[in-house]
């Protein structure tokens, strides 16, 4: 496969600040040219460090960073063809919008006329023309973000690196700016690498989601794959939308495993070719929107799993209703019931219900490694 100019490859990338603890532990990852890639993880998982190493603001302790097939470790940011958008935008407070955006051109020694021509074109692209003479302090959060984006994009980078670009904005603006980022990425046609701790943001934006935990990649893949088919408990819980619970295998019939504990005796999980044997404790995930609720005593179809439980709490969410159940003891178990379905026969707190789902929709998760134990 040909290497394109915006391809990024991280090979054995390692970072340690003090030589004792490693914040990034030998990451291997390939981000294709023109992809929108989101690094997702809690704070301190090493995602920002990776971004800063790609940007050239941090030197790796070990490993290689290849952009367009060329090892860029040790090169300054400009030579890498990367541009970074900083977390709080880092707009120069003494320069107006035009001069902030044109800063890189000024550094390159362009004449004022050329500089202003290119800058004004970029200002128009991000729709800031009326605000070109304003100082950053006179702009709203969303406007500041557009300036930061334009200032980075004017260098015509092959990779744009965004460090928590939406975290400084309020909820409504965040959703609007998300669309704007997507539009910019399509317009520019370059690789975006975006660091966030918000799974909503990641799955809404990214072609490729990289879920990180303590300096390691837990799962990398398309947003839908990571959300719908999480590899292990950590990914499933971090992305949310899944009920994760553990159980001890009692028997395996065909490819379906069943469980020993009396509460879980009506649950079956497809294990496929996974090396699961009787007596193992396995993690299972069931999507919250796959769970349905019925009154006890109702018949359930043959290939359906079910749990008897009690309603702990009910939260109205508008288009669906979130019903919390005390089904599996320690793990929380939630059903997302479509709003209309719920109100046909609403449940009250304390009602005894059966949570049901088609058995083939449950998923066996990879065994949790020592890392998260």
């Amino acid at each position: 496969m040909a290497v394109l100019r915006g391809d990024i490859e991280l090979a054995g990338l390692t970072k340690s600040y003090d030589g004792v603890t490693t914040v990034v532990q030998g990451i291997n990852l390939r981000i294709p040219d023109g992809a929108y890639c989101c690094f997702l993880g809690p704070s301190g998982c090493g995602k920002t460090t990776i971004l800063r190493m790609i940007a050239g603001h941090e030197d790796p302790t070990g490993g290689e960073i290849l952009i367009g097939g060329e090892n860029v470790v040790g090169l300054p940011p400009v030579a890498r063809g990367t541009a970074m958008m900083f977390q709080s935008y880092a707009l120069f407070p003494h320069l107006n919008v035009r001069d902030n955006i044109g800063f890189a051109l000024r550094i390159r020694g362009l004449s004022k006329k050329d500089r202003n021509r290119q800058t004004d074109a970029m200002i128009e692209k991000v729709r800031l023309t009326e605000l070109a003479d304003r100082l950053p302090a006179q702009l709203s959060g969303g406007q500041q973000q557009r300036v930061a984006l334009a200032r980075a994009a004017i260098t015509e980078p092959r990779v744009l690196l965004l460090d928590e670009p939406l975290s400084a904005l309020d909820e409504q603006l965040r959703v609007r700016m998300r669309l704007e980022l997507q539009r910019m990425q399509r317009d520019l046609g370059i690789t975006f690498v975006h660091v966030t701790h918000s799974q909503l943001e990641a799955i809404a934006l990214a072609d490729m989601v990289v879920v990180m935990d303590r300096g390691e990649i837990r799962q990398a893949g398309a947003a839908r794959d990571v959300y719908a088919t999480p590899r292990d408990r950590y990914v499933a819980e971090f992305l949310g939308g899944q009920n994760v619970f553990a159980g001890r295998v009692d028997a395996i019939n065909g490819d379906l495993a069943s469980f020993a504990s009396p509460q879980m005796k009506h649950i079956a999980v497809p294990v496929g070719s996974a090396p699961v044997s009787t007596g193992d404790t396995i993690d299972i995930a069931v999507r919250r929107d796959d769970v349905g609720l019925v009154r006890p005593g109702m018949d359930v179809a043959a290939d359906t799993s079910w749990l008897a439980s009690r309603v702990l709490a009910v939260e109205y969410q508008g288009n669906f209703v979130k019903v919390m159940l005390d089904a599996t003891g320690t793990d929380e178990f939630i059903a997302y019931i479509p709003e209309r379905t719920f109100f046909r026969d609403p449940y009250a707190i304390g009602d005894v219900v059966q949570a049901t789902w088609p058995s083939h929709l449950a998923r066996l998760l990879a065994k949790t490694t020592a890392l998260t134990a």
Partner: protein
Amino acid sequence: MSAVPQSVAVAEARVTKHAIAPSRGSRPWTFYVLAGLFTFYVIALYGPMICIYILSFQDVRGGLVFPMKGLSLHWFVDLFTQVRTGDVKGAFDRSIKLAIVVTVITVVVSFMSAMAFRRRFPGDNIVFALMIGSLVAPGLVLGIGVGLLFNAIGIETSPYTSALGAQLSWTLPFGVLVMFAVMSRFNPAWEEAARDLGASTWQTIRLVILPVLAPGLVAVALFGFTLSYDEFARTLQTAGPQNTLPLEIWSMTLNVTSPSLYALGTVTTIISFLIIGAALGTIVFIQKRRGAGAS
């Protein structure tokens, strides 16, 4: 149920009765106490100076105390023409030039040390303590020490050697402290952003760090200038054979018994105000220029 609104009403009544915070109606008594205290403070602060300024505008019959005798600029003319009042013009000249040199060195060194202290380094606390330490030393003692040392080495004390050094021991710690305060509001991400956009270290300093810190640097310059221009204790034993302005004023208080002493006070105050005005004007200009969007 009915108990709740009742208790709220009671609580409300209690609040209005004992409210000390300003309300929409009359001001609380504490306002008048504090306003009176502030008025007293302002009179104590400016009263003595204003007495001097008023008395400097007497005519030829004027004396050193109230009441005011006549109204003229006689003593101002006397100040600059009479030899017996001392070399005011020369002293003024020397003080201004020395203050300018002190200001430049203070601004440059304060800026550089603030840059150095952005990151921690081994022994940074000790270096900081050494820089600030000379603030604690009594000025007169420090001045005598500098004079003694020069004497021991066998160098004549003079304004641009011993006096300059002694004054810097006073202005530099101040400058460094002000610069540290200014620097604490400097976002290191600005430097990184400049680097990200291709700026060299020097370009980052020239196009980002210096312009952002400019108002702070003006403040440091103002500090350096006024501290040097006013400095007496450290300069007394180090200025060499010729007086700076504060030394001249001091010697005049011993010899001169005419209101021309007060005229000198008025003149030096006006100059101080002009310098402060110029500094503030510069800051306003910098901010205006930014607002106007000139590049």
